[in-house]
């Protein structure tokens, strides 16, 4: 008898084979981190089923099995190897295996050059991800599967990593998208993630096997794979047990059951993981801690107040919805904090009905909404005000601690840090999309272990050696937890470790403090996550100072909104009355907007009384039916300029130029150059989702920035246009604008043509000219281009010289036009009294698929937009910087930041593509330049993510802080 054990991140499986390799018995169960215990149970079960056997040959496999195997002296079989072994036996004609596990995703190519791909350190686990998403929707994964069957449409959800996808789904839920559509979109995101992240350009064809838990249990997920891969995959019999069976196959060393069980028992409590000091040494310490925090209480009053006048605040957060009711003095009368179960609207309705029923005598005299669902709730229930959550938090914190100078808010999805100076927001730090999900991460973790969040948090209080999990995004933590589990860490220590890592994330990743003093002396913490004593304790310990945790720390947003409503009340509120509530209806319907080329997927919410709320829009057009006003939008100006370079028929045939990365700026140069030489210059179309997907399968590195990934689609589009030649030069150097010590491009911009040449097969069938060009040396360019083109086109050198001269002139004229327009916009905005935003980035950030329409979002808020390159001429000398200033695009950013820091009516907002290592440096330096002059630095990270919710909060907070909120 041979037994294979497969210990994965969430489950343990066993397969028993006879000598001929036939499966006799199999079993699986969730191990909830209790690996040794679960395996013991599995073995005992096997033993009872085969009473005549005293032992068997054993082998262990699985991502969490390595440690156990080592300790028990049982041979370990790498899990991918085991899968392959089993597949070769069971389905010899399989070509490709797709296996999704709790936290792993794998693709195995069996034919041709055998190859196996596992998810990298960044792509989140898929099973765990599905669990997390299901929890978000308030269903099980099977429920998610069932929901998905009813879907009508699929929303675009970022597919690179779980956390990203989550930040996309959350707003969809809050904006009232249909559950079934969201469910299907989640499954589709898993599919996209697997294909882009793992196949990385290698086509998935032939007979495909689906293995592992999610693919076994969720048929909709299999259909989603089938649909996307355009084939019919197979989920074979025993698809859960391939790893275990493969391991059993390899088992040759005999063990007695008694022996194995004894070993397991010995190793139940092994301490092999990196750990830290306990959070509390003893119960006394914990009591003292609790006592101290009991002091921080808000003023409360009895309901109903004497005059019957109350003010309502609603905070519709990412996972919860919170209510606060105050009286005319701001005393808290009523409160509620509950999960929104994926849709906040019914929760709010229920609360209001309940409020009216309990206290028929009250009169709501003011009402305000805040949080992610602010617009939805405000429209649905006709509240008076909508305020950005950062402002709500500040108002609430000030009530409790008037001289507060720092607020740290950790909610379900996001983390907000507000630095307060003289009572106004001086600086804002929001977590980047990659580390979001802190609070809800704990939540999901807890429910994966079968307990609620409060229980789970409590576990950590007396943990003797909390696991050191580091401070990075939650996906990394998942694998660190896996490691700790492997090393036998107890639940208590994992719980405490997770709490610690949340704080470390906040301090060292989001705020990046050097010392506790830099936060200020009066720190107020809020957000539901701080109900967790371990989290609070860690913060105090890291800061080496006591902080204030209000007794309503999870409620502060709603409390602040209520206080705002009180302050701005006109004496009465338009909030729905009890009668209106009784007749309340809410319907949501997905549609695709056809207003412009963006084709936004909108959700139209209709409420009783004819109120409507549209979400998902990137401009005001679907709401106001007016075209976006681009008169003070330099991004739109630049796009229009580039669109004017149209192909002119020529004698030398077509030459294609992909519109992306540096060519977004250099188009005037190359268009002029090649048109002059008699080519018909064809540019690739404006980027959109479909274009991206077209090239997706040829991207070799899944962590490269999105603008680079788009290039694959652009060259494919040119191939489709029958260009016999495509021109996309490599450029180590950019043009030298004299604003830095050198004029490099970043490595990606410099050499991406090499990647395309090596990975897009069609490019070998046509002429793909991707030689090296140095525009920084105008004197040499003509000869070098002549050499480059000579092999294919016999163009005389003088002709090239003339074309180069014209090209430089065209480029200069283009840049001058931008600078002129910049001056015009600044003057016009000043005349019209509009605030100016310098939306700084890189030339390709004007691509609407890259910035997701952020420029129009800003102009829609009544601001004027100038780009960093439009400030040329206003800044003549390079600013003094504390970094190496040798990249052309970076130099522009520094110069722009320096210029803005001296302008009272300008704000600096930097667009940063996710994965841009260079901007890690520029962002820090731009921040320093601005802060030295008392200006606020705002960064917006952009990726495939379609939703602009987070960007909106950031911008509105900036406007509020700068005193220019509408």
């Amino acid at each position, binding site marked *: 008898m041979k037994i294979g054990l497969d210990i994965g991140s969430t489950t343990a499986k066993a397969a028993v084979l006879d000598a001929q390799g036939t499966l006799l018995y199999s079993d699986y169960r969730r191990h909830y981190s209790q690996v040794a215990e679960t395996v013991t149970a599995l073995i005992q079960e096997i033993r009872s089923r085969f009473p005549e056997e005293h032992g068997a040959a054993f082998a262990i496999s699985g991502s969490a099995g*390595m440690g156990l195997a080592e300790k028990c002296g049982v041979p370990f*079989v*790498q*899990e*991918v*190897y085991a899968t392959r*072994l089993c597949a*070769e036996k069971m389905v010899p004609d399989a070509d490709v295996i797709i296996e999704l596990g709790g936290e792993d995703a794998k693709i195995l190519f069996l034919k041709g*050059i*055998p190859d196996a791909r*596992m998810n*990298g*350190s*960044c792509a989140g686990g898929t099973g765990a991800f599905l669990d997390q998403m299901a929890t978000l929707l308030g269903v099980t994964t099977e429920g998610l599967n069932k929901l998905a069957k009813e879907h009508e449409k699929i929303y675009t959800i970022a597919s690179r990593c779980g956390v990203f996808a989550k930040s996309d789904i959350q707003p969809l839920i809050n904006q009232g998208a249909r559950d079934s559509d969201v469910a299907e979109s989640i499954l589709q995101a898993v599919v996209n993630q697997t294909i882009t992240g793992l196949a990385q350009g290698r086509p998935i064809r032939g007979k495909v096997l689906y293995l592992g838990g999610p693919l076994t249990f969720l048929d909709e997920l299999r259909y989603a794979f089938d649909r996307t891969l355009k084939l019919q995959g197979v989920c074979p019999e025993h698809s859960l047990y391939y790893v275990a069976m493969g391991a059993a196959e390899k088992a040759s060393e005999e063990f007695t059951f008694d022996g194995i069980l004894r070993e397991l028992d010995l190793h139940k409590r092994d301490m092999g993981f*990196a750990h830290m000091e306990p959070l509390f040494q003893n119960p006394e310490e914990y009591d003292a801690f609790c006592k101290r925090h009991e002091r921080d209480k808000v003023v409360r009053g009895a309901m109903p107040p004497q005059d019957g006048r109350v003010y309502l605040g609603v905070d519709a957060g990412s996972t919860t919805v919170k209510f606060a009711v105050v009286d005319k003095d701001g005393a808290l009368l009523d409160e509620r904090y509950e999960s929104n179960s994926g849709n906040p609207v019914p929760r709010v309705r229920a609360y209001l009905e309940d409020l009216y029923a309990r206290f028929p005598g009250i009169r709501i005299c003011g009402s305000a909404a805040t949080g992610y669902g602010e617009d939805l709730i405000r429209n649905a229930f006709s509240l008076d005000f909508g305020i950005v959550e950062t402002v709500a938090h500040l108002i609430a914190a000030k009530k409790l601690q008037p001289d507060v100078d720092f607020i740290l808010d950790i909610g379900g999805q996001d983390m907000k840090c507000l630095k307060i100076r003289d009572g106004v927001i001086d600086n804002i730090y929001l977590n980047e999309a990659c580390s979001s999900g802190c609070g809800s991460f704990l939540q999901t973790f807890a429910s994966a272990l079968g307990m609620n969040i409060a229980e789970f948090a409590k576990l950590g209080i007396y943990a003797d050696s909390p696991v050191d999990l*580091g401070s*990075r995004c939650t996906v*990394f*933590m998942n*694998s*660190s937890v896996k*490691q700790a589990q*492997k090393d036998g860490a107890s639940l208590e220590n994992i719980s405490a470790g997770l709490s610690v890592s949340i704080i470390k994330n906040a301090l060292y*990743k989001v705020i*990046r403090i050097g010392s506790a003093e830099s936060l200020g002396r009066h720190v107020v913490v809020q957000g539901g996550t701080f109900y967790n004593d371990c989290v609070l304790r860690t913060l105090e310990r890291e800061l080496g100072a006591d902080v204030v945790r209000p007794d309503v720390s999870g409620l502060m947003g709603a409390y602040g909104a209520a206080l705002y409503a009180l302050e701005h009340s006109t004496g009465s509120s338009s909030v729905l009355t009890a009668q209106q509530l009784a007749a309340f209806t809410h319907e949501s319907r997905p549609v695709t907007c056809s207003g412009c080329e963006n084709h936004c997927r909108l959700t139209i919410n209709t409420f009783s009384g004819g109120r409507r709320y549209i979400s998902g829009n990137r401009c005001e057009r679907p709401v106001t039916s007016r075209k976006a006003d681009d008169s003070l939008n330099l991004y739109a100006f630049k796009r229009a300029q580039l669109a004017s370079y149209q192909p002119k028929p020529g004698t030398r045939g077509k030459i294609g130029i992909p519109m992306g990365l540096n060519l977004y700026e250099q188009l005037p140069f190359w268009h002029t150059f090649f048109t002059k030489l008699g080519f018909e210059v064809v540019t690739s179309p404006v980027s959109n989702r479909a274009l991206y997907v077209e090239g997706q399968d040829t991207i*070799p*590195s899944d*962590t490269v920035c999105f603008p*680079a990934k788009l290039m694959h689609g652009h060259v494919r589009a040119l191939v489709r246009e029958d260009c016999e030649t495509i021109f996309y030069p490599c450029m*180590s150097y950019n043009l*030298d604008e*004299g604003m830095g*010590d*050198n004029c490099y491009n970043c*490595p*990606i911009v410099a*050499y*991406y043509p*090499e*990647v395309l040449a*090596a*990975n897009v097969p069609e490019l070998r069938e046509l002429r793909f000219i991707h*030689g*090296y060009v*140095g525009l920084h*040396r105008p004197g*040499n360019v003509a*000869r070098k281009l002549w050499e480059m083109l000579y092999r294919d086109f016999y163009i005389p050198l003088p002709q090239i010289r003339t074309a180069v001269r014209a090209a430089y002139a065209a480029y200069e004229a283009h840049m001058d036009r931008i600078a002129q327009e910049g001056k015009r916009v600044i003057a016009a905005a000043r005349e019209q009294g509009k605030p100016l935003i310098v939306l700084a980035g890189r030339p390709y950030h004007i691509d609407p698929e890259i910035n997701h329409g952020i420029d129009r979002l800003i102009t829609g808020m009544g601001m004027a937009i100038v780009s960093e390159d439009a400030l040329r001429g206003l800044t003549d000398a*390079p600013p*003094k910087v*504390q970094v*190496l200033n040798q*990249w052309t695009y970076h130099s522009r950013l520094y110069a722009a930041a320096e210029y803005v820091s001296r302008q009272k009516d300008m704000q600096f907002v930097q667009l940063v593509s996710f*994965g841009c*290592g*260079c901007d*890690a*440096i520029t*962002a*820090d330096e731009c921040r320093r330049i601005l802060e030295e002059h008392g200006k606020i630095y705002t960064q917006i990270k952009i990726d495939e993510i379609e939703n602009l919710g987070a960007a909106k909060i950031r911008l509105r907070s900036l406007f509020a802080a700068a005193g220019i909120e509408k």
Partner: protein
Amino acid sequence: MKKKKTTDRVIFTKEMKKTHTILFPDMLPIHFEIIRHVFDQYGYRTEVLHNDGREVINTGLKYVHNDTCYPALLVIGQFINALQSGKYDLDHTALMITQTGGGCRASNYIFLLRKALKKAGFEQIPVISLNTSGLESNPGFQLTIPMLVKMMVALVYGDELMLLSNQVRPYEKHQGDADALVGVWVKRIGTMLSSRRGLTLPEMRRLFDEIAQAFAAVPQKRCSKIRVGVVGEIYVKFSPLGNNGLEKFLLEQGCEVMVPGVMGFIMYTLSNQEVDHRLYGGNVVKSSLSKVALHYLEAVEGAMLDAIRRTGCFTAPSPFPRLEELGDRVINRGSKMGEGWLLTAETLELIENGYPNVICTQPFGCLPNHINGRGMMNRIKELAPQANIVAIDYDSGAASVNQENRIKLMLSSAKRSGDPDSAPMEEKRSHSNKEEYAMT
């Protein structure tokens, strides 16, 4: 067009040369110990840092922007951790860091280090930039040509010791012999360099031979091992701190490891001058100067490789011109940021030299490696179907279990494709059985 600006950095003055100890980060354990002796000879007091572990990473996380590359985080973490340890007199300590001045963001390390020092309250500590491109200068630290030459020679000796010990360690009969021999030679070479010996080409030839013979004489038990090559970003490729002790892990897995030497990188940097001139035109003097230097180093490296080859029992890596040829097959040598085309070429060289299993180490999100590492893998596999390559990301948050899992997976394929007569998979399974256990 270029405008030089003065920064407010702390200058390393002539007086400091006498009073200060200069600290080095730990990147090349063998090489840096030898180089120290060159510094000694020129009157600098230096020390190579060896502090490591989670402490260093945590310090780095605290003082460096989390999104910058992992090597920056480690190097700076190691420096600040050392300064905080109380082991050093803060008024008489300086730091030294290399700066290539290339288009990779790594050229910024020194600035990030200064920012971090400021944040940690060590503003008084001078930081010396070790560069050959005139990026920053200090009156107290002059990199003269003879000194530079000696440093290069030290690196070649280091490369030889590394290449040989890597080929002996897996087979030594008595565990620890190879490392002990490295220790002996590091001392001997150091003393010789201090007394200005071992610097002429004939002397080097003799010494190279002597070293190679010494390693050949270590009692060894030759058996079949999986031969694994390591390429990658220079810091994580070499530094055990950066790659979670990769060489040790591979050794435990029953592999023989080949790590191409650091001279390749130096020569690559020099050759870039010439390539730049060819591609873009420009300063002839600069490019011919580097050509001269390149030829000299090629001669030295050639002598070292000859010595290894003459032993008859060790694999000598291919000389630099061969790497250039190999690189040309896949990528233009204009790709010069970070490790640039060299990384691609080294991968091909390893495959060609009998190390078809290659680990490409890179910091998570390393920009040049998107191009030269992952970006070129499909091409490499087309050219060399036997290639068995895995890219491993290193990062402060990446769990070593994931890295090890992926390496083990690569190794398990190595067993199969390592077979010269590629029989169908079913037949091969039976004999890979035993090996699998031997490996794990």
